[in-house]
């Protein structure tokens, strides 16, 4: 099933070429980020950070710092309520992080104290004057070490430092392996990755005597920040206003509390003055969170004809010092490791282990890039071992619309089969490649928002309010957060399509908790589907109210339908008969005694299994050239075959996919976070390498037409899922070029050189 007749409804605005509605602000330098905010009387805050990976705080003496001219306040954990917070609010044992710890630090870079001063320079100078007495404790940095009986205890009472375990199982893997003709086991390691948002963590907090706290903050969910800050401050949510109008990137790293928002608030409440805290790039590297490093063990059983029998996987992940979103990443990696295939028997066990390193958390792909790196490479090797066509082997076992992942998920739309066909043609067209060149591809799938409510919100997951003004312009209030992914534009397009007006008629209000309804925000690829549904429903509500007046005015036979398209209210069967939209608005206003038409819409997924209401599918192909003597990898070309249901914003979709590719390719071979004794060795952009323009290949995209019944106009996720397949695709390309199997990511040059050496030695020994 690909296209249904519903999708053939003529769309007027959706998937046309529109400029993002915030584009002009961004190309003229007018867009003001938290990083740019300057309020009258504002002070500057700086954070003193722990130099130790694990230590007790014995005493903090700030007297010298306070004596420095220009210093207004110093705060430590003792100036806070000491709330152990976390985003998994339903589970108190997973709320384990005090942003300013009272007793103990657990990683290098953890905040210990914060200063507010009249200039940033004075605040920084004051940090050197704060005297902290630590009792240094033994640290542990690797999960396998941390699980040992004799390892130091990082959180009181947490046995063997095991923070979370997750188990997913269906079918019976033992029976499955018995049916298999061939079984293969591999160990992998996937490293961490920095979100590296161009806007570092930034906050300006302003507490005023009426008891109101206003915070400008760079985040992915204004509502989460509001609720979490209210929690740690003991305030009412309604008295905390969070504004996140322009946000310089998020990628999964900006929906938990960070030191910038926390310390700026504490300082501002103490001083009753606005306080700004901006992280340096180094602070952003060492003291935010990161993609979860994972040790993967994978065992796969398969029949000679390529039928998948059983898959078993075990993950031990480096959780770092706190839980964050790590519990979700541990679950999702296990779930998406099964994707996009029909395993009759599947078992996954995940262990997230505390260590004295930077906490790990969600990052674009949310555990799935690690899962695919292991799964999709191993499948490629299995196909080679068995002499099977790697595309046909996968296709034979792939998801299809109507499939149920046993007990977990229902797949209502799936363009995977076509994606395989597209990839096959692309590879065939490439023909025979020169030496040291290879093509690899990988399949993957991803969710369109999560159904889980560990945050324990009492609100609908998404809400929208739409108000029609007398001049027929439209105010759309949503709680979704625009972080560059284009959600404001997406919602404006959905609203314009639904109401039958133009994109420029819609004014979107988002990212301000005082004025927008609650929404869980921009993570897990949820906004297009969830906020999109809420927006669509709000607009349908308003439209229905308006059309009542149109029916009354036009006095039509009940069998006739009315609709609005391009600002024209008309009879569906006789489109030329009707009236302009603004005329209808005037009539409705008069009819309602001057009340504006207000439409409301909500969305919370129900009966959608364990994970998500809908799933996107994608194949990523890459052509790679490898210098076998130096191990240097060059990306020459690529192809993306992608099913995101009905695309809403054509330009936005391309941008999301290209961006995902660059981040994922960087994860595959460049982005590397080495730690020594708990210290990150490359916390700067000189030593942390990422894809730059010169490293980007062409990125042609083949969009697969499907229709997702649960999504607004048939839409589902785009932009996060494509982070999943790419590292594996690079690994597979290397495998085809050189015949070596790369089990660690990022794949770095010396690993290729070493692998080739090993291969040559083996071949020699074999002779």
């Amino acid at each position, binding site marked *: 099933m690909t296209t249904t007749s519903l999708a053939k409804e003529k769309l007027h605005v959706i998937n046309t070429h529109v400029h993002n509605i915030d584009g002009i602000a961004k190309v003229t330098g007018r867009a003001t980020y938290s990083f740019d905010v300057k309020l009258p009387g504002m002070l500057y805050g700086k954070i003193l950070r722990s130099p130790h990976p694990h230590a007790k705080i014995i005493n903090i003496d700030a007297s010298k710092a306070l004596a420095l001219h220009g210093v207004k306040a110093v705060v430590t954990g003792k100036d806070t309520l000491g709330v152990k917070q976390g985003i998994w609010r339903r589970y108190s044992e997973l709320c384990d992080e005090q942003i300013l710890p009272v007793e103990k630090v657990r990683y290098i870079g953890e905040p210990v104290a914060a200063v507010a001063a009249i200039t940033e*320079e004075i605040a920084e100078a004051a940090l050197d004057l704060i005297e902290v007495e630590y009792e240094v404790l033994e640290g542990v940095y690797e999960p396998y070490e941390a699980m040992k009986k004799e390892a130091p205890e990082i959180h009181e009472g947490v046995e063997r430092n095991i923070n979370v375990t997750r188990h997913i199982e269906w079918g019976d893997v033992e029976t499955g392996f018995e049916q298999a003709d061939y079984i293969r086991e591999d160990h992998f390691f996937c490293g961490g990755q920095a979100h590296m948002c161009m806007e570092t963590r930034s906050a300006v907090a302003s507490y005023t005597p009426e008891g109101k706290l206003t915070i400008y903050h760079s985040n992915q969910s204004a509502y989460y920040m509001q609720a979490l800050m209210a929690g740690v401050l003991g305030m009412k949510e309604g008295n905390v206003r969070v504004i996140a109008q322009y946000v310089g990137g998020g990628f999964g790293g900006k929906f938990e509390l960070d030191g910038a928002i926390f310390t700026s608030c504490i300082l501002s409440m103490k001083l009753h003055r606005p306080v700004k805290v901006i992280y340096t790039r180094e602070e952003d590297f060492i003291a935010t969170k990161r993609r979860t490093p994972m040790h993967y063990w994978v065992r796969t059983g398969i029949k000679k004809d390529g039928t998948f029998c059983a898959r078993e996987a075990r993950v031990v992940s480096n959780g770092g010092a706190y839980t964050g979103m790590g519990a979700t990443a541990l679950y999702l990696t296990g779930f998406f490791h099964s994707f996009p295939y029909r395993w009759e028997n599947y078992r996954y066990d995940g262990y997230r282990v505390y260590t004295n390193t930077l906490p790990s958390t969600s990052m674009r792909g949310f555990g799935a890039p690690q899962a695919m790196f292991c799964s999709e490479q191993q499948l490629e090797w299995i196909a080679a071992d068995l002499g099977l066509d790697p595309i046909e082997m996968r296709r034979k076992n792939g998801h299809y619309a109507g499939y149920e992942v046993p007990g977990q998920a229902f797949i209502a739309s799936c363009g995977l089969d076509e994606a395989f066909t597209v990839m096959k043609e692309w590879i065939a067209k490439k023909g025979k490649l020169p030496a040291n060149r290879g093509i690899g591809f990988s399949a993957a799938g991803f969710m369109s928002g999560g159904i889980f409510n560990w945050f324990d919100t009492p609100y609908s997951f998404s809400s929208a309010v739409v108000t029609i003004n007398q001049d027929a312009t439209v105010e759309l209030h949503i709680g979704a957060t625009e972080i560059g992914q284009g959600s404001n534009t997406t919602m404006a397009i959905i609203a314009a399509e639904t109401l039958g007006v133009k994109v420029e008629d819609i004014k979107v209000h988002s990212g301000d908790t005082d004025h927008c309804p609650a929404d869980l925000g921009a993570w897990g690829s949820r906004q297009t589907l969830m906020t999109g549904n809420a927006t669509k429903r709000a607009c349908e509500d308003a439209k229905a109210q308006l059309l009542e007046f149109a029916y009354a005015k036009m006095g039509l036979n009940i069998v006739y339908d009315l609709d609005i398209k391009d600002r024209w209210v008309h009879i569906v069967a006789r489109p030329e008969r009707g009236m302009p939209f603004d005329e209808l608005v005037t009539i409705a206003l008069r009819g309602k005694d001057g009340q504006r038409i207000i439409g409301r819409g909500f969305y919370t997924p129900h009966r959608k299994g364990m994970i998500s209401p809908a799933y996107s599918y994608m194949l990523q192909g890459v052509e790679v050239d490898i210098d076998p003597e*130096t191990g240097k990898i060059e990306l020459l070309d690529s192809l993306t075959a992608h099913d995101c249901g009905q695309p809403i914003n054509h330009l936005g979709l391309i941008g999301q996919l290209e961006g995902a590719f660059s981040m994922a390719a960087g994860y595959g071979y460049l982005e590397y976070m080495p730690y020594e004794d708990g210290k990150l*060795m*490359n916390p700067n952009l*000189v030593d942390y390498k990422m894809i*730059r323009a*010169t490293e980007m290949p062409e990125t042609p995209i083949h969009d697969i037409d499907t229709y997702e019944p649960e999504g607004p106009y048939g839409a589902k996720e785009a932009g996060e899922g494509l982070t999943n397949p790419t590292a594996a695709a690079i690994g597979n390309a290397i495998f085809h070029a050189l015949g070596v199997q790369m089990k660690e990511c990022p794949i770095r*040059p*010396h690993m290729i*050189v070493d692998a080739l050496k090993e291969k040559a030695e083996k071949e020699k020994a074999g002779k």
Partner: protein
Amino acid sequence: MIHDFTYLKPGTVKEAVAMLSDHVDECKIICGGQSLLIVMRQGLIATDYLIDIKGLKELDYIKYDDKEGLKIGATTTHKSIEKSALLKEKYPVLPIMEERLASLQTRNWGTIGGNLAHADAAGDPAPVLIALDAKIKVGSKAGERVFELGEFYTDLFETAMNHEEMVLEVQVPPMAPKTACAYKKFNLLQNDMGVVGVAVKITVDASGTCTDARVILGNAGVTPVRAKSAEQILVGKKLDEAVLVKAGEAAADDADPVSDIHASEEFRRHLIKVLTKRMARQAWEQAVKLG
């Protein structure tokens, strides 16, 4: 945070060297600032006086004559070298090296004098210029001195200049007939600093036999390293694969690289081996083709 300083802006070299002698140990030169401001921000350098020579037009030149060879003034930007038609003709290795040096913005503003004075072990120009037998002219109130560039570097970020001296000019002799120079750095991103770099200059006779060679390694020690044993292997031979491999191995032995997060010492030696082989081949092939 940058330590406070008094800003001085000389209008001429004469004024500049006078300022240097007035403030000797309390001053620092800034030219393009591309490297200096980073280390000042990190607090690694604190100075009371900063002497800004970026505007010294009298040191902004690229001159060539067949007898004296090439002269490049200290305030000449990387961009001018990269785009110079003269250099593309006479010393093509220099613009080629510059194209891969840092970003467009840094090449627009950063200078050759600053680069050479900064003495970063991973700098690109020094190995290439040393392979070209360059000299560096420095000056102070007391007068001028000329060093072989190969002897200019004494340690990491250290040169043979004293604190009253500044770089004035880099001088390169004319290329001998049938001589070519090739340079390549290994890095992960196209214009990134090199993990290691290798410059090789080869002169051949009419039969194609190598009569003279320079092999200079970048980021293979605290200063640029001249791989003399590799040079000895190359001289007197036609550069077939066996000779090239041997030269590469010799260069790897001559090197004294560090281990860091980008490459272990062992991997750096391996890369030097590969790059030396390739650059020697490339320079030799080009030299053979020359009339």
